[in-house]
């Protein structure tokens, strides 16, 4: 168990970086609380795997430090950091039985047989693998193999952090939810820090207590899933999370008022700063079709069971709305109204309205 601190971390794969574009990680300062369940969420290439490998010790950062409980471990190799890592595909020792696979990390550290047995049984039961202990590991299904990978990470009781690098990539979609719940269950039983890297928002939002959203090598927002959904601090977060994501519309700001296509828009609060580019962010859930408001034309609409997603064109922008009720015909003239408490202005991507308290 340890508190992990990332101090002014940045990393470039290029030995002679010349500019910010050469950096996979630009500047990360972060504290991971002991025992928390974190998700590192972001699109491909945002730097999340790089960050993960730096924490685990498989990669040494070009700048900055990694601290475990205040101790500088930046130069320590992985086996001395007491971490565990689960990879995208199951990494198991094919020729060994499930039992031996789980026992391997303990035996390598000279733990006595009695303790090994106790620990292996504990973990196997938690992972529901106790019936397969004698089976050769290579004969298991991929989801069970991943469980073995996870098990090897949890079997050592001095583990500081368990890291998951997109572990459900090769798992059958039908079994993904099962493994996800298993993971959450495991975290509740074993209060060890877990960091789960993914590009899938569903995985991140269901697993984590705190989600760290990354884009282009920087941390864009950290928060609970609810916080990220309700109040995205960056247009990227708003757009990435949600299905469909937040609408980002160009807007003009003058005299403290925002207008979209000439129409005034009521906001959640005061506008705090105005930069080069100003945009309005509103989630489709909070866009309503009414009789008066911003005029738009329906482009297409789909009933997806729980609700209807309507895409409209207003001026030059495409806006998504989520409504109840039957989908309107394409070409219908509608009016949009935005829920003011959920309408925000973003300046250069970052949130620029303050909530009136």
């Amino acid at each position, binding site marked *: 168990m340890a508190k992990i601190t990332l101090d002014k971390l940045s990393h470039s794969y290029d030995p002679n970086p010349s500019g910010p574009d050469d950096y996979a990680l630009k500047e990360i300062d972060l504290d991971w609380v002991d025992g928390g369940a974190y998700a590192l969420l972001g699109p491909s290439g945002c730097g999340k795997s790089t960050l993960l490998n730096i924490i685990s010790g*498989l990669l040494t950062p070009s700048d900055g430090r990694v601290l475990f409980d205040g101790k500088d471990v930046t130069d320590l190799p992985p086996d001395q950091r007491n971490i565990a890592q689960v990879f995208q595909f199951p990494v198991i020792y*094919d020729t060994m039985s499930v039992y031996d696979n789980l026992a391997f990390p303990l035996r390598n550290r000279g733990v006595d047989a009695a303790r090994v047995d106790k620990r292996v049984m504990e973990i196997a039961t938690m992972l529901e693998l106790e019936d397969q202990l004698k089976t050769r590991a290579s004969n298991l299904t991929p989801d069970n193999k991943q469980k073995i990978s996870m098990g*090897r990470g949890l079997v050592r009781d001095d583990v500081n952090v368990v890291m998951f690098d997109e572990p459900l990539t090769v798992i059958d979609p039908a079994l993904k939810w099962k493994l996800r719940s298993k993971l959450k269950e495991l975290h509740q039983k074993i209060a060890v820090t877990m960091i789960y890297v993914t590009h899938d928002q569903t995985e991140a939002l269901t697993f984590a207590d705190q989600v760290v959203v990354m884009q282009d090598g920087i941390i864009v927002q950290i928060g609970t899933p609810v916080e990220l959904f309700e109040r995205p601090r960056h247009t990227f977060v708003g757009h990435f999370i949600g299905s469909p994501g937040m609408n980002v519309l160009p807007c003009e700001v003058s005299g403290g008022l925002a207008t979209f296509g000439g129409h005034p828009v009521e906001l959640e609060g005061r506008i705090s700063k105005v930069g080069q580019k100003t945009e309005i962010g509103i989630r489709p859930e909070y866009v309503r079709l009414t009789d008066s408001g911003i005029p738009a034309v329906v482009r297409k609409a789909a009933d997806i069971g729980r609700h209807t997603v309507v895409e409209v064109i207003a001026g030059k922008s495409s806006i998504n709305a989520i409504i109840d009720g039957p989908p309107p015909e394409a070409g219908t003239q509608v009016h949009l109204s935005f829920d003011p408490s959920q309408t925000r202005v973003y300046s250069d991507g970052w949130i620029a309205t303050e909530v009136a308290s």
Partner: protein
Amino acid sequence: MKTENPKAWFFVLPVLALVAFNALIPLMTVVNYSVQETFGNNLFFWQGLDWFENILRSDRFHGALGRQILFTATILAIEIPLGVIIALAMPRSGPWVSVCLVLMALPLLIPWNVVGAMWNIFTLPDIGLLGYTLNTVLGIDYDMTQNPTAAWATIILMDVWHWTSLVVLLAYAGLISIPEPYYQAARIDGASNWSVFRYIQLPKMKRVLTIAVLLRFMDSFNIYTEVFVLTGGGPGNSTTLLSIDLVKVALGQFDLGNAAAMSLIYFAFTLLVSWLFYTIMMKDEE
């Protein structure tokens, strides 16, 4: 995945034709000869299975077979482990990899008679580099043309020189196909180098190693040119391996019946062992 399609036979027809031409017709000829006696002049007399019986009883055949088995067993015992060790010691990536691979592959592309000639020149007692070093510098009495032991040592050394690279290349290909996370996980698990070899590298190399053993077995069992050019089968018949013996009988003595029968036995033996290896290899693939 594959669709059922009888028309596929058209695709395969050219291959079938060429290989059948080269394989079936000669085979039929050989079978034909093997059961007949000839005195030249195209006179043939039915012999039945006499030839086969003669050969299987003959000391000469036993001698050649015995030498062949000894040869193949020895080189397999040397080349496979040696090849694996070298492959393990090679860098997994980087600029030196191409250089190493190209240099190592060189012996494999030298015409076999040149290999024999090269080693001939190399081992001449007083004027060859190895011969000179052994005789004059180290004082070991070494003469391949006189001493059967020296001849054996030389043909084995030559084969190791010639073919180990094939094992290295195959083993190396197997090694670099192991994804990096396996090594990472092993580091995290605290595994020793020996554990990494035993539990990760060796199992993943099983496929390629089987191919390597199969190829080396087949080729060494059928070896002809290099050994013939180097020793001619001598001194005496101490290095007369199966192929060399067969050619002596067939083309030298023109004893067609004998040669044909011997060919079939030889072929059958190679086929049997190779088939065993092949079956094992394909079984793993399932």
